[in-house]
């Protein structure tokens, strides 16, 4: 975790939990993804890739808030994983974030699904 507080800054309001569903490593994201917390998500994807786990699902269903920095991380993660022969699935049945993906056209670029592929 990033620290609180010698400078009075709050703890990042982001929680990541890892699990596996079928061939996918799943990062479930709670809290808020913004320019302060997004590096933590970026690092989690980078870590999985470094371990050779190239099929990754990022589950945004429980995510409270996501801004454009979070979208940038999704784009970067997709590029990194597909360049290495893997894939990124974005799981989202959260209307607020679905709207954001729709507004930016990223619902057409990213592989957005309602659930992690189980096969």
């Amino acid at each position, binding site marked *: 975790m990033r620290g609180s507080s010698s400078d009075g800054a709050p703890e990042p309001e982001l929680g990541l939990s890892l699990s596996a569903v079928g061939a996918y490593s799943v990062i479930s994201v709670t809290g808020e993804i913004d*320019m*302060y917390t997004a590096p933590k998500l*970026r690092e989690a994807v980078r870590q999985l890739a470094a371990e050779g786990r190239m099929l990754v699902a990022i589950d945004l269903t429980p995510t409270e808030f996501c801004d*454009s920095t979070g979208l940038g991380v999704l784009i970067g993660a997709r590029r990194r994983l597909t360049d290495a022969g893997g894939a990124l699935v974005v799981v989202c049945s959260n209307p607020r974030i679905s709207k954001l993906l729709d507004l930016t056209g990223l619902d057409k670029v990213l592989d957005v699904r309602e659930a992690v592929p189980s096969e």
Partner: protein
Amino acid sequence: MNASKHEHRAEPVTVRFAFTPAAAYVRAARLVAADVASHAGVVTGLLDEVRQAVGEACTRAVLRHRDSQIDDLVRIEFSIGDRFVAKITDNARDMRARSEGRRAPVAHGGDARPNDHDALEEDTLSEEITLIVLGGLVEDLVVTGPDSENGTTVSMSWPLPGGPQSADH
């Protein structure tokens, strides 16, 4: 007070603050935005939009200051008159030559330090995405600047109960 055109209400209100351009404070800014909007009477269904939009504009401002390597404060002003108006002002002046030099790596892979490359690329992407999000999200959006002396101001407004319905900003 910058609310002379808001003659509808007896006492136009302004809330103004500024923050050091660091990622840690963007959350505070967007939460204040939602709170002030709520107090102003913006309907509940629009508060998420206000929070998202002000957060995006502040993120963009922080990225612009970072890009220009300046640590001037990002300025925010909310005014409550006929509409709820939010203005986010950065101080990153137009330095086109530098900016283009900085952006080139996005298209070409670039020469950033390897560990920072992804972050730099995503930052630049994010700055572009902020405007796409704002454009899609906010009906009344005006972005002015930058020029050689001033940075940019993102102005946005939302209706208030009892105010005019059209965006006359």
